[in-house]
């Protein structure tokens, strides 16, 4: 069997300056299941987007079946025989399975009419060919997600995809559905298909893949046969690195637990158990880091803690008081601050000014306002102070946030959340996408908050960050706490990796 897809020296730089792929070269052999693994930000999704024509690389070549190809858009990729199943399924909910399947390549009756009967037949045929059972006449919105995903796969197969790319396919599936998917993939291999499978769940990778490519920091670290690697090997390749940072000085004084989470569970609208019986506590004066690859429930956990989402069962106590069911404002009034994961969506209103962004959690309190009247003079002075203290590079407090760089926008968010002297600080991916200098500053500020007695809950996919800052660490995988480390000194990614990637768990 030869090489079906070969990418050579792919370089992709996003407009904001982030170098997602720094000269990536990979060969995918025909009729194999080839897994691409790596942490968030390693560049795997970007690589797939380049192959499928969603993004254009600055440099590099792509060869398909030995010939160089130029893919300008997904349609080109589809024509060549590459199909992609995205993480967020692209199906029309009110149309049936067969309608979704034939969309864009509809079978015709005569010249103008849709042959719905033929569409159903085609669906049944493709379905039978590959052993993928789908109810051709049911509407997508009435199907469970495992079946929906199968429809997506069939969509690609119907268009004669020989190379199938699946982006984190198991992140939305229950364990049972995952097993079914794997059976499917093995079937497809028997039919001569080649599959590229992006994942960070190493157990699954070991179970299904023939070859593994490990990416880190935009480069390929290794491509090997799966049988030659243990899960630990893969984990080390993924996260092992020279320790390039120094841990911050230990906390001075640790007090009582200010944030207590007990038996917290959350089942989402697709009936997936996102959080399973989570319990932990964060004490005054310490930083509890929660390590985990994104997508293991952290987002939902933070939303529940900050009142932006309803939990299913369990308790969340701030200094002993249960806050589940309280509004975001009431939770903030209990002196809880939140640096959000998505700063553009939640953290700022980018068309508003810095001043307006600084006061969203306190505009209604004196001295920012007296009664109903805002005191802009005070707000301006206050904003200037924040700009200075937090080193925000802006022309004036009346500049709009959109004129700032990513790092400075994050500083605005951090400035606001820290300046209220919170009792509990939830920092979710606090240094994502910002420059090194700003990162340093944010880390120092988190340490300062800790030393002033706050209980800091740090959620981060950046292992270095977690290891550098945390007093204690818990690891989350698949919605469960799978490890707790009360001593962080001397820990490395090699220790945390296996837990983060589902290979090991504490009993």
């Amino acid at each position, binding site marked *: 069997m030869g090489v079906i897809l070969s990418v050579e020296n792919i370089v992709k730089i996003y407009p904001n300056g982030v170098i997602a792929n720094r000269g990536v070269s990979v060969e995918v052999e025909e009729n194999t299941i080839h897994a691409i693994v790596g942490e968030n930000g390693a560049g795997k999704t970007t690589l797939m987007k380049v192959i499928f024509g969603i993004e254009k690389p600055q440099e590099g070549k792509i060869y398909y079946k030995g010939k160089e190809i130029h893919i300008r858009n997904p349609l080109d990729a589809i024509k060549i025989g590459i199909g992609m199943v995205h993480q967020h399924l692209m199906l029309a909910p009110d149309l049936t399975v067969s309608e979704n399947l034939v969309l864009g390549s509809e079978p015709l009756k005569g010249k103008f009419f849709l042959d719905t009967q033929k569409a159903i037949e085609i669906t049944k045929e493709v379905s039978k060919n590959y052993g993928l059972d789908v109810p051709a006449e049911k509407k997508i919105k009435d199907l469970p997600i495992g079946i929906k995903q199968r429809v997506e796969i069939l969509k690609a197969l119907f268009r004669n995809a020989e190379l199938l790319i699946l982006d984190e396919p198991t992140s939305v599936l229950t364990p049972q559905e995952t097993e079914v998917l794997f059976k499917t993939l093995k079937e497809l291999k028997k039919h001569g298909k080649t599959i590229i499978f992006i994942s960070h769940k190493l157990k699954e990778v070991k179970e299904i893949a023939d070859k593994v490519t490990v990416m880190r920091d935009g480069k390929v670290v290794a491509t090997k046969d799966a049988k030659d690697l243990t899960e630990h090997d893969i984990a080390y390749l993924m996260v092992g690195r020279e320790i390039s940072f120094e841990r911050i000085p230990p906390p001075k004084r640790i007090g009582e637990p200010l944030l207590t989470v007990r038996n917290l569970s959350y089942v989402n609208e697709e009936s997936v158990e996102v959080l399973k019986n989570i319990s932990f506590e964060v004490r005054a004066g310490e930083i509890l880091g929660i390590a985990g690859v994104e997508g293991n429930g952290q987002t939902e956990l933070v939303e529940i803690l*900050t009142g*932006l989402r309803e939990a299913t069962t369990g308790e969340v106590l701030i200094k002993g008081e249960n806050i589940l069911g309280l*509004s*975001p*404002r009431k939770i*903030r009034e209990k002196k809880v601050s*939140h640096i*959000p994961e998505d700063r553009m*969506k*939640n*953290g*700022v*209103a*980018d*068309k*508003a000014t810095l001043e*307006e962004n600084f*006061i*969203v*959690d306190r*505009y*209604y309190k004196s001295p920012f*306002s007296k009664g*109903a*009247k*805002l005191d*802009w003079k005070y707000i301006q002075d206050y904003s200037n102070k924040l700009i200075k203290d937090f080193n925000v590079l802006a022309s004036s407090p009346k500049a709009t946030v959109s004129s700032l760089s990513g790092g400075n926008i994050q500083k605005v968010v951090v400035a606001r959340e820290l300046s209220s002297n919170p009792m509990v600080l939830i920092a979710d991916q606090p240094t994502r996408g910002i420059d090194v200098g700003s990162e340093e500053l944010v880390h120092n500020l988190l340490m300062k908050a800790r030393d002033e007695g706050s209980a800091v809950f740090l959620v981060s996919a950046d292992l270095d960050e977690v290891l550098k800052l945390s007093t204690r660490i818990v690891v989350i995988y698949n919605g469960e706490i799978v490890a707790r480390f009360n001593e962080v000194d001397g820990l490395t990614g090699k220790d945390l990796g296996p837990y983060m990637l589902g290979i090991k768990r504490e009993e």
Partner: protein
Amino acid sequence: MEKFVLKYFNLIRTIIAIAIGIIISIFVIYVISKNPGFSLKSFLLGPFLSKSRFGNLIETASPIIFCGLAISIPFQAEQFNIGAEGALFIGAAIGTAFAVSTNMPMIIHIPLVLLVAGLVGAFWGFIPGILKAKWNASELVASLMLNYVAYFLGLYIINYHFRDKAAGYLVSYQLPKTAWLSQFVPGTRIHWGIVIAFIFAILVYFFLYHTTLGYEIRMTGFNIHFSRYGGINVFKVIIISQVIGGFIAGIAGMTEVMGIHRRFNWQMSPGYGWDGVVVAIIGRNHPISIIFASLFLAYLRVGGQVLNLLSDIPSEMVTVIEAIIILLITAEAFLEQWRYRITIKEAERKEVEHEPAS
């Protein structure tokens, strides 16, 4: 030069759109009119050439300013409530009913009548507000439907219960003199309503930019996720922004009745609510810009009327020009290429500035 353009880009775009509109009207006049020079003069200068014409400009602007303000408040919260037309109609109808049935000294009567009209309008804004806040029902469709309900309900109330049978047509009883807004510029019909409109514009400015509630409304409009995350009660904001809009619209209708007609004599919906949408768009929801936009719209209207009267060109040309101007303003990508090129040039210039001399 580029920096200036970038900073005031939206304003410049608006001015260019208006200029294009004016140029088109000049062109049309030249093509159609048998006496283009005279027609042009009537159109462009007409509103200023006599006291009563200028008065027309001011009186026409009055309800438009009100409705522009009324629409701008829900628009600032990203609520597409276009119910000002209905709110002003039903507010005026019930306000008239109240004015005609009560007797009190002017100093109480006037504010009370206005208050009644405002409260009715507020209720009209409340309905789409709560439907949106609670059940995410389209406030656009709901407010549009309510415009019709208001129209029929208002007509019913006036035609069946307050109709002045002595008068020739379908109109209400005349308002008692204690409920009249007097016209204080002789030779014109300019009434105190315009003063109230200006006062409201200032109040709305103050409200939107200097109060906590105004802040909540604007932030919700900027980014509803941010507002929720920050603790703002978005449910309340969705409702209140539409209630306040309705209140102002109710007053708008009533001032027209009290200042110009002195009775409810609308058998068709006057259309100020739609004008309000137009000036809110042109003025980008800012109260002071809305005043200018309304004066400009009124200027165009009166100019069109003079044109119509004195020359051979129908006033509807103005409507067409207005429409073109709005289309250009609402097209975000209008002149976008230009802005993009200037942005690149600016960025390059900044690069050069920061390069060390070597």
